[in-house]
């Protein structure tokens, strides 16, 4: 067994960018269409332009592309118990996606008489409402229900259903580092104004810095009255 500290870095194979590794063409088109309803294209790019479906396809293809090397030069070749765990996890996720595409089509056929991918956007939204069991979300309002239950800060894929995975992976493929096949041309980062790094390597070697976003001119005595010795401060 190779220690996690010594997992080799495997260079990405030629043609990886254009490869379809897991989905059939029909599954690919269906997931592409579904992710485009999760983060739609408007006056700015959406999931489709970010190649979110490529991100998901690559993730589901096995354990070869789960972890990029720290500097982005390739991908880590996992081994041992962690590799076993990931193989089982990816197999579970792949099965959920396969069934999920069948479910999307079944709902679409039942309600509109055609596969999901052949439907118009509004019809696709109706299918996603059925799948999720809830109405399509409305815009953020100033006042809404009171309070949210506490949750895990980090996302694990284990235990999520197809719709939850679709939402979670669409976000990841839109906003994650381009090394994983999504966020094509950094469109996701541009949409929300995140000045992401040029490369993963740039986050190691000191070339990527957002120091200019810290407050440059300040005096702690201005910010903290207690330092000025003010009464009641």
């Amino acid at each position, binding site marked *: *067994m190779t*220690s*996690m*500290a010594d997992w080799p870095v495997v260079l990405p194979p030629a043609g990886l960018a254009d490869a379809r590794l897991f989905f059939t063409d029909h599954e690919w088109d269906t997931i592409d269409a579904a992710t485009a309803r*999760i*983060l*739609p294209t*408007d006056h700015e790019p*959406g999931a489709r332009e970010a190649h979110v479906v490529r991100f998901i396809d690559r993730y589901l293809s096995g354990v070869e592309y789960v*972890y*990029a090397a*720290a500097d982005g030069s390739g991908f880590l070749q996992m081994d*041992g*118990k*962690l590799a076993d*765990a990931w193989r089982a*996890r990816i197999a579970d996720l792949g099965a959920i996606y396969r069934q999920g595409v069948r479910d999307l089509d079944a709902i679409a056929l039942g309600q509109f008489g055609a596969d999901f991918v052949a439907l118009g956007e509004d019809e696709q939204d109706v299918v*996603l409402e059925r799948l*999720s069991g809830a109405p*399509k*979300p*409305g815009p*953020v309002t*100033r006042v*809404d229900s009171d*309070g*949210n*239950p*506490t*949750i895990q*800060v*980090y*996302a*694990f894929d*284990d235990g999520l259903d197809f719709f939850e995975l679709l*939402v979670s992976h669409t*976000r*990841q493929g839109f*906003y994650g*580092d381009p090394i*994983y096949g999504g966020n094509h041309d950094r469109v996701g980062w541009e*949409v*929300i*104004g995140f000045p*992401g*790094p040029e490369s*993963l390597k740039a*986050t*190691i070697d000191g070339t990527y810095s*957002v120091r200019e*976003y*810290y*407050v440059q001119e300040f005096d*702690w005595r201005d*910010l*903290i*009255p*207690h*330092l000025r010795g003010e009464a009641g*401060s």
Partner: protein
Amino acid sequence: MTRPSLEKGNNMQQARKPDPVDVVIVGMGASGGTAAKVLCEAGLKVVGLDRGPWLRPKEHFSGDEIKFLNRTYLWSDPRVNPRTVRMDEGETAVPTPFSMTPQMVGGGTVHWAGWLPRPRPSDFMMRTLHGDIDGASLADWPVSYDDLEPYLSKVEWAFGCAGLDGADKYEPYRSTPYPCPPLPPTRAGKRFYEACEKLGINAMPIPQALVTQPYRGRTPSNWTSFWNGYGDPTGMRSSTLTTFVPEALATGNLDLRAECYVREVTVGPDGRATGVVYIDALGREVEQEANLVVLGLGAVESARLMLLSTSRYFPDGLANSSGQVGRNATFHEYLFAVGLFDDEQPLYGFPGNYISGGSFQFYETDYDRGHIGGALIGASHVGQPVNWNFPGRPQWGSASKDADRDFYNHAMKVGHTLHDMPVESNRVDLDPEVKDAWGLPAARITHKAHPNDVRLAKWQVDKNVEILEAAGAWKTIPVYLERGRASGNTCHQHGTVRMGTDPATTVLNKWCQAHDVGNLYVLDGSSFPTATGVNPTLTIMANAWRCADYIVNTHAKGREARSTSGRPVQTLTRTSGGQRVDIDG
């Protein structure tokens, strides 16, 4: 030092039995790394074992949100190390990734943001202050703030800590100033200070485990803002992986073996610990004998290992004659509120090293609030684009895209970790069904929040909201502890192997030495009688240093007094220098 020789891994024979050593430390994180430094620098021969990998920051860490936050590169994998959780004994526990503190050399100090606040004197005397609270098992610590204070200073200076002298109006006695000044504020941090001034709240930079000026060979050089949850490739962050562990190795006295999974602490015919049995990286079973065993796996896994270590002497688990191993577990659920702003000027969601300003103003008990205890309030950035904190965000459609686009750079967060009450039935034990990847029973957590926890959390989250409103938030989103169900969303674990004076009701004495087993010490957060209201790592490390000092100066030199139970406590048999000399207690 040795790394597992992986090239020779074809034949899976029993590994050659290694030579006995003075001390074996299980778990090389916050407490184990600290103990290794102190014991090795004092000349003891130490074997350090960690279940997880020994990673190299410059080679393994970078600003990859998918890898670190969504694919759990550091976070313990729940399929390898499963946990199960239930609210009470009537439920069947279900697999849940609860408090999945990284299992690796450096432990929780590798991925953390580096909160390094000091505890307060009141944290050590909750029962004296409040008496018995219904449904809780409040206890005083057998040590006080004053006992720990010199070690808090030692850790701050040896480890690296940034803070602002004189800014915290409520600060207890400090024997030393901060070694480094604080980071500059972020825009959101500045907004927090302004809101606090408006409300008459004393805010200050929260002490943080990083360096802001050249310090002990380190430079402040990570300005990427990929911080909370990520490994730091630069060494700016204080982690035992990059400080105390290399310092221990530099003595020549530490043999660090990573990816070695300890399945049992062994016990001899005299009831003393004889060492540990572990499965090495090649799958071989190895017995490591030692004169003294130190556990530092974290409160969940240390309790689990003790419960797994049954023997003729200890049929209910190692050093568990009290039946208290695993009980009174506390977990510091993180609760908070997010503010969304509609100002033209962005606050920016991403910059900073996670932590901004904070306040101890609402830390001490005020009975008018209807509960005991309080919290350290902390402002923090909302994080990177995939996982930025926006509870209740519209999940899909144009509303979802607009929510990110409109608010990612117009959001800030104020929150606290919950000073939860110890409850005897909140515990860690062994799951009867679920096994880990080595085939051993998973830790089962039974946890239901005490009513005081729910009231305290509600009051503090409402205070978080009030601060965000004073900061000018357009909308505030509170996150409460609903129905008493904690999610286990922090790595803070305490209380499963409590220290105290009475062997009938506690497991460890004031030196974190087992009442039942004189050569067993448990130095992680499991010794905490109560959770405290601050992030626990500084207290864990200071306490580990204090106890390691005791091992070096008293236990190893045979100066130990008789134990509280009146039985002589066996002391260390030194193997250093090739000869064994039994030193009586």
